[in-house]
């Protein structure tokens, strides 16, 4: 049977296109405008070509922020993914406690980002914070406002607290979709716990894990609010991640040109990494099907 081609259907996409144009594409164009021009206010622009881009690409400040950013994303992925899987494996499969755990796990996800930041900012304070004060009372020298390592630990623990649930819930959904017969067959085949994980649970979770890793990577690579509230990028520049640096540059120093060039590259980098990541993972999948 021949399919009828009706190109008029494309008009149905128009409303979305208009909306997206006004909410995303046009504002982005403003950024593009700033990236290629220099301005001294009064809406006067001077063509700057790719000067800003050159400045940013060679900027040590940006390299350092990028380094910190990559390190941060890798660390939280290395913690949250295995931890999320571990939690999902140990959550009850049904009954009251299953619902209880689900609600409990969902709670951190429901808290607005700046509230999460504020919670941890206070929680970690040595003078009034439960965590900071307890650690101090135990004789541990902990102060996230002075010590870069403490600041890093605080920001990472906060992110793990905030987002591991997402990985756990996604994995849990993946695990719930495994028919009971698989576990029964594994018992019959005398498989070890590890084999059950390796050959039944992990393959079934692969799809959701891919999404979890992608989401967590993108989010952590763009992280702004929480560390900004807790450490403000400090002490010094030690927790200044890319977006914090960007905001400092744009709204703090009012260097709109470099900041615009920076954000365009930032956007493209995230897009590129996500695309590469997704392509590699889906290709692996296809290879296996052969």
């Amino acid at each position, binding site marked *: 049977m021949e399919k009828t081609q009706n190109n008029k259907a494309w008009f149905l996409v128009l409303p979305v296109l208009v909306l997206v144009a006004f909410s995303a594409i046009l504002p982005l164009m403003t950024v593009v405008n700033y990236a290629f021009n220099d301005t001294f206010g009064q809406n006067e622009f001077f063509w700057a070509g790719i000067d800003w881009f050159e400045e940013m690409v060679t900027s040590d400040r940006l390299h350092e922020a990028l380094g910190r950013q990559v390190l941060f994303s890798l660390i939280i992925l290395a913690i949250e993914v295995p931890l999320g899987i571990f939690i999902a494996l140990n959550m009850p499969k049904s009954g009251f406690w299953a619902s209880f755990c689900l609600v409990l796990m969902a709670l951190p996800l429901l808290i607005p980002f700046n509230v999460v930041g504020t919670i941890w900012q206070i929680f970690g304070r040595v003078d009034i914070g439960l965590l900071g004060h307890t650690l101090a009372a135990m004789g541990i020298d902990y102060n996230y406002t002075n010590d870069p390592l403490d600041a890093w630990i605080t920001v990472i623990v906060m992110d793990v607290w905030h987002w591991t649930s997402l990985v756990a819930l996604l994995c849990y959904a993946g695990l719930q979709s495994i*028919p009971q*017969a*698989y576990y*029964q*067959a594994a*018992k*019959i*085949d*005398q*498989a*070890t716990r590890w*084999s059950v994980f390796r*050959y*039944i649970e992990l*393959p079934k979770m692969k799809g959701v894990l891919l999404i979890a890793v992608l989401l967590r990577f993108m989010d952590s690579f763009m992280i702004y609010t929480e560390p900004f509230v807790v450490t403000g990028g400090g002490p010094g520049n030690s927790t200044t991640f890319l977006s914090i640096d960007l905001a400092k540059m744009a709204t703090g120093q009012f260097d709109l040109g470099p900041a615009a060039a920076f954000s365009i590259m930032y956007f493209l980098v995230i897009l590129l990494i996500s695309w590469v990541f997704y392509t590699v993972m889906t290709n692996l999948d296809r290879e*296996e*099907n*052969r």
Partner: protein
Amino acid sequence: MSRITLSKLAHSYNPNPTSDADYALKEMDHVWQDGGAYALLGASGCGKTTLLNIISGLVRPSQGRVLFGDRDVTDAATTERNIAQVFQFPVVYDTMTVRDNLAFPLRNRGMDAAYIAKRVGQIAQMIGMEADLNRKARGLTADAKQKISLGRGMVREDVNAILFDEPLTVIDPHMKWELRTQLKDLHREFGHTMIYVTHDQTEALTFAQKVVVMYDGRVVQMGTPEELFETPAHTFVGYFIGSPGMNLLDAEVSGSEARLGGVSLPLGATYGATTGRTQIGIRPDYVTISDEGLPVTVKRVEDVGRHRIVRAELAGQPLNAILAEGQTVPADPRAAFPPAKINVYDNDWRVSPMGA
């Protein structure tokens, strides 16, 4: 390999069963002989799978014991029982190759590589998948996956028993017949105890030496196909085995005579008094329609290819008969029952004749 004994076994999925109806399996005592080929036959939901899962240890019975040989395994985990089970729907390890799938149970038991390679080769040949050994199991058809499941079930030579839970449901008819034949060959060759769950009587009767018929959580009869056919112990067996099933007619039985609808019928033996609903049962295959016997009203005649089935009524009760080749239904049809082929049922259970 060992004899499997079920002693005072009963199971309820309800933690606090109060009445008989709460039990998926009613109390039973059965012995499954070592090396026997059994078919577990019954309608859906009668407890077949529960019984199988209890034997394999996937379900712990709420009452009674399970013994392998003389060893009590009621509380032993599935892994300790060394038993194979093939499920209704294919279970394969997607990320493994067909070869690894087949080798998996052997590797888990720590067999040596040379033996595994040889054994996997044999099994692959048996299920006809030698050419696909290096393929990933994912992406194969349901048919092929189920063959792998069957292969995985048969790969261990030292198992105590192999349990099949309607394994051929998803397989196409031609392959079904072939695999069933292979299972029989396998049984003849290695003498494993095999229990084969099915709701298809042809499958049960061709596979097994002994057929176990279950009805409503009970084993109602355990016998050879011939016993099930000739002397069904329960009306359900009569109705379930044979096509069409046994004719069951309400009657009054006294001594060696049955009375139904004002006419009397001689029985092959003498029976004691019955206490509940009394029925006589006779296979359609033994009813002859001619101009002798009890008067019947013929409703219709169905041609099913090999023979024709007469759907009739005798004293207001439905009666089926199988018409011999070339035979016609006379204008004034009558049905004759060979007395020796009549069974008597009291409250659905067969009554043994006196002096037998």
